[in-house]
């Protein structure tokens, strides 16, 4: 293994533990929802999105319309639109590998790429970036598949396992809450979704909720000092 690849492996170890565990949870959930084991590698290779794959299990088992599936994916992963903007420079001249690296740009990979590593020489940077993307993807595929395989071998009462998704979102919500000075988006998002659920029922509430949230955010006037 080249020096850049070795350094990439060392720097991705925190993601290794995180992805194995979260991927494992996804595999167990997928299996408990009645899906075959091979769907875990298929989804983790092609979609490669943490939170969205959890949401996908619910969408797939409820047979949600493709419009709902598409809109939900758009909103849940819209943050990725903004990752690319800050990586334009780093990804310049990375050649054919760039296509794969952009495809594999998850939250965790993005944070590692932003942090960078001063020990890696400018010449080795491209290889270093590539292996960060590649290793993280491998961890995720492994975690998801191991979870699904384990779920199919070990039988246990899995009732309530879907709370793993709720718990994951609560932790992300708390981290965002603490990093933002203004809580209008979070409070509005919860209120609009709650109102939409009460109004339209659990089969039809997501699309109106997403449209109203987008509209409210576009109309929202930020004060000068509100960037938290």
């Amino acid at each position, binding site marked *: 293994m080249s020096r850049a690849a070795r350094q990439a492996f060392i720097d991705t170890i925190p993601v290794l533990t995180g992805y194995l565990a979260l991927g494992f949870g996804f595999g167990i959930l997928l299996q408990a929802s009645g899906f075959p084991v091979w*769907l875990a590698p298929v989804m983790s290779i092609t979609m490669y999105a943490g939170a969205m794959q959890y949401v996908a299990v619910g969408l797939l088992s409820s047979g949600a319309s493709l419009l709902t599936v*598409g809109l939900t994916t758009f909103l849940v992963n819209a943050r990725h639109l903004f990752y690319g903007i800050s990586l334009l420079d780093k990804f310049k001249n990375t050649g054919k590998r760039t296509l794969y690296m952009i495809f594999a740009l998850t939250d965790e990979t993005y944070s590692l790429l932003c942090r960078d590593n001063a020990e890696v020489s400018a010449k080795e940077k491209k290889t270093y970036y590539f292996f960060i993307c590649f290793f993280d993807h491998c961890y995720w595929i492994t975690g998801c598949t191991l979870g699904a395989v384990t779920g199919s071998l070990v039988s246990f009462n899995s009732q309530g396992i879907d709370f793993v998704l709720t718990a994951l979102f609560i932790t992300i919500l708390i981290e965002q809450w603490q990093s933002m000075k203004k809580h209008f988006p979070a409070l509005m998002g919860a209120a609009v979704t*709650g109102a939409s659920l009460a109004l339209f029922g659990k089969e039809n509430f997501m699309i109106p909720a997403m449209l109203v949230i987008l509209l409210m955010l576009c109309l929202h006037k930020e004060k000068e000092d509100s960037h938290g």
Partner: protein
Amino acid sequence: MVNAHTFYAIAVMAIITALLRFLPFLIFKGKASTPPLVEKLGHLLPSAVIAMLVVYCMKEVDFTASASYLPALLASLLTGVLHAWKRNTLLSVISGTVCYMLLVQFVF
């Protein structure tokens, strides 16, 4: 469980996710600045969407039946308090989920 709809839905999710990751490179390549609306949404959208997803996860909870809302409420509180305190995602997620599973399987 797996039918044509499963594959269409996975294809839609995979394509939109990839598109969202590629778009900024296609749009902003060679441009000096990003439009203010894009920047504003980038700043505000994530927490609104996560709040929406937390409510989405509660859609099956019946708030008129204590056996339905108490496990969800208690496990959410445990997850939230633990995370605000320790800030360890794995610890918070596993504790909250195990707590919820124990509550729905043995208590309520």
